[in-house]
């Protein structure tokens, strides 16, 4: 809170009851729109009722005005494929809800989302306003479905559930990778046949269709993305072939060795969700990882989404991994899109761009958002100014404040 001007505190307080009642104009900003409009210097962005209502209007009429003093304004970053709100402490089983041994294609982890997780304010400080949260683990090759949550910490954070289906393919510690590929293909083929038969029989009774079959049917109709975790090039080609055959809305995740088949991926118009920092050959499926790969894929015309590899608690570092992608050859605007517009496009979100009509998820930065020295100065989610303080800040302050009393009295 201490970072806020008094007018903003008032705005934030007002926002809790009558959300977004006040309109806000941010003037004199260097706006990275993450759209074809590119970067706008000395620009004004007006937000009202949770959405962006004007960019560079002829006259500014808003309840509040903030002079950005030439600083960078970007869409809020969108993290993806993490377990934010589903885990408090990774090694504490009772604080984990992202996986279930019996989870299947219908698994909806959004029911477990905890907006009060201490990871969320820290993530917000990293300029992240939303996340595409993904289930992981469980015995089935289908891990369940993604959901979208904002990073406000409010109880109504979950914006959309039952999004994309997550499937894990590739190297197996027991058995053959062929089995899962075959099973997936068979499932799609059987469902296709069943649909054709139902059409032939003129059955229009959807009530008979089981829940898991409904999800498969949505994949066949291209209504739901299928996110396939694959690394080896042969596995990538195998799922590309399934996309072709069944008309899937396919998204590749991980995709360690995608650089070997990037022309095929580009041709199939399939986006890739990847870590920009992966460059060690962790397995025989990933012998071609390299810090330059995100840039190479992007230049090949592939829509790249950058994620943070590993523990969900590190999601706040997303912007630095994007900076490293730029350092290793990725075009700056493409890199920005990889955590804003591209995520919105692939997952059908109304944020990720500074454009009239989009959700007012925006961040005002002290400088280049990817640079280590930069910090998020102010951040809005659906037009609401957010607190940029985390539990970590409180701990720091407790132990750097002079006091004669035990630290426990410093709050």
């Amino acid at each position, binding site marked *: 809170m201490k970072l806020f001007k008094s007018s903003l505190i008032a705005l934030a307080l007002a926002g809790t009851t009558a959300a977004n009642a006040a309109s806000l104009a941010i003037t004199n900003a260097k706006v990275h729109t993450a759209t074809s409009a590119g970067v706008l210097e000395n620009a004004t962005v007006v937000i009202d009722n949770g959405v962006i209502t004007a960019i560079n209007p002829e006259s500014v009429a808003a309840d509040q005005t903030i002079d950005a003093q030439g600083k960078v304004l970007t869409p809020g970053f969108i993290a993806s494929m993490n377990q934010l709100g589903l885990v*408090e402490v*990774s090694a504490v089983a009772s604080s984990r809800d992202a996986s279930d041994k019996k989870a299947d294609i219908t698994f909806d982890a959004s029911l477990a989302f905890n907006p009060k997780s201490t990871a969320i304010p820290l993530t917000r400080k990293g300029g992240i306003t939303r996340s595409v949260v993904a289930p992981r683990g469980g015995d089935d090759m289908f891990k369940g479905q993604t959901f979208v949550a904002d990073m406000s910490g409010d109880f109504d954070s979950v914006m959309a559930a039952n999004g994309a289906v997550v499937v894990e393919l590739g190297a197996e510690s027991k058995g053959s990778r062929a089995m899962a590929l075959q099973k997936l293909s068979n499932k799609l083929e059987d469902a296709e046949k069943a649909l054709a038969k139902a059409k032939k029989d003129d059955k229009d009774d959807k009530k008979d269709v089981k829940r898991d079959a409904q999800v498969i049917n949505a994949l066949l109709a291209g209504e739901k993305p299928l996110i396939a975790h694959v690394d080896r090039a042969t596995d990538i080609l195998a799922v590309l072939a399934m996309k072709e055959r069944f008309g899937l809305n396919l998204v590749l995740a991980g995709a360690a060795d995608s650089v070997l088949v990037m022309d095929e991926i580009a041709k199939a118009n399939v986006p890739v969700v990847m870590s920009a920092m*992966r*460059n*060690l*050959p962790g397995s025989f499926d990933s012998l071609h990882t390299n810090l330059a790969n995100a840039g190479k894929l992007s230049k090949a015309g592939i829509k790249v989404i950058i994620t943070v590899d590993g523990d969900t608690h590190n999601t706040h570092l997303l912007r630095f991994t994007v900076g*490293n992608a730029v*350092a290793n050859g990725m075009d700056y605007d493409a890199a920005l899109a990889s955590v804003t517009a591209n995520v919105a496009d692939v997952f059908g979100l109304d944020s990720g761009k500074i454009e009239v009509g989009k959700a007012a998820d925006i961040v005002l930065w002290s400088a280049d958002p990817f640079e280590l020295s930069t910090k998020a100065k102010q951040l809005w989610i659906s037009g609401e100014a957010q607190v940029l303080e985390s539990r970590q800040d409180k701990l720091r302050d407790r132990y750097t404040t002079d006091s004669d009393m035990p630290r426990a009295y410093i709050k």
Partner: protein
Amino acid sequence: MHKIVPSLVMAAVSVALTGCMKSEQQDAKVTINKNPYPSTYQVLPSQKTIIQNATVLVGNGERLENTDVLFMDGKIVQVGQGLPTDGATVVDGSEKWVTPGVIDVHSHLGVYPSPSVESHADGNEMTSPNTSEVWAEHSVWPQDPGFQTARAGGVTTLQLLPGSANLFGGRGVTLKNVPSHTMQGMKFPEAPYGLKMACGENPKRVYGSRKEAPGTRMGNMAGYRMAWAEATEYKRAWEKYEADYAAGKNPQAPTRDIELDTLKGVLDGDILIHNHCYKAEEMAMMIDLGKEFNYHSGTFHHAIEGYKIADMLAENGNCAAMWPDWWGFKMEAYDMVEENVAIVDAVKNSCAVVHSDSGTTIQRLNQEAGKIMYRANDNGFDLKEEDAIVWITSNAAKSLGIDDKTGSLVKGKAADVVLWNTNPFSVYAQADQVFVDGAKVYDRYDEKYQAQSDFMLGQE
């Protein structure tokens, strides 16, 4: 340390020759070779080199603008302005930055190498809570491709440690980050051994879940104390043997115990403690434990709560090796603050170190240090690049007991040098050239200086 071997052989031989002339017949003195797997490291081909007109972070807190760094025969010759270039390879350092080679005090490269297949999981002898008898150097696979990527990130020296499942995990080894097909070819000559210890959740979880001791934190403490008590007896037995022998008696040597050799090495001051320990209250007890058994409690690794006991760490001469911002993966990693390193560093006589414990972040320890500096400066600190570089160079060297040899760009020290394309604390910074003992081991723009492990050769 390598001098010990020939002199001891001489002593043994002379005893054998002269023994019969003494009043009491003495058997040959039993001695323990402290360096049975000696370094065979050779400096790579090198030439006199001068880097001109760079911003130089010396590693001792100093920063010098438009400065030249001259090195020859493996050593730093001079750091200053307008140095003579005769006979030297000249490198243009204008707009660039020069720092000492980066040192990582906590790595598992080589012992948990890539690919991380089962056959390669050689980093932790998780078969007993006290495995002081194992040495990480005996697990090192020098073909780990991670050594090359770490070198491209400016890492010239690294300590490989055993894992943290055990109270005593075994000896760590310090390596020069040069390509070699043997461990000995990388081994840092005369660097002291480390002994890995671990506090907290890992040992009690691993052994407790098997219904073995330790199953609690008090069980952890009991395990350390019993081991040190035994080691104290072992040390006493050897000292008595040596004193009696010196007095002309013919005592029987104690039975050799490989496990206790390592603990005795700590009590003798030859081996340095490297203690995986996250929490304030546990570090405070480990410091007392060292006092109870007369050894120094060394460096605390991870030290997520170092900031809660910054004064105590400095008063007791403990280094703390920390991450900038990893947290939340275990309860003992819950109280992370992004300014931890800066708070530990702010106390007089402190020794704050930034470590990786990761094949990924070891490649960017400069950025790890940078994040800390900037977050601290956002919150009232006034840290400069010349301060932050210390965390990944000279303080790290101090933690490893090699600060007389490397870690700063001062005359006479090893020419372990990194030339950066820009301010090393930028997200866009990259190491252009890396030198170990004055020899170029990496060049971002010259494939000739980009080593590749056997494993990666021919992979298509």
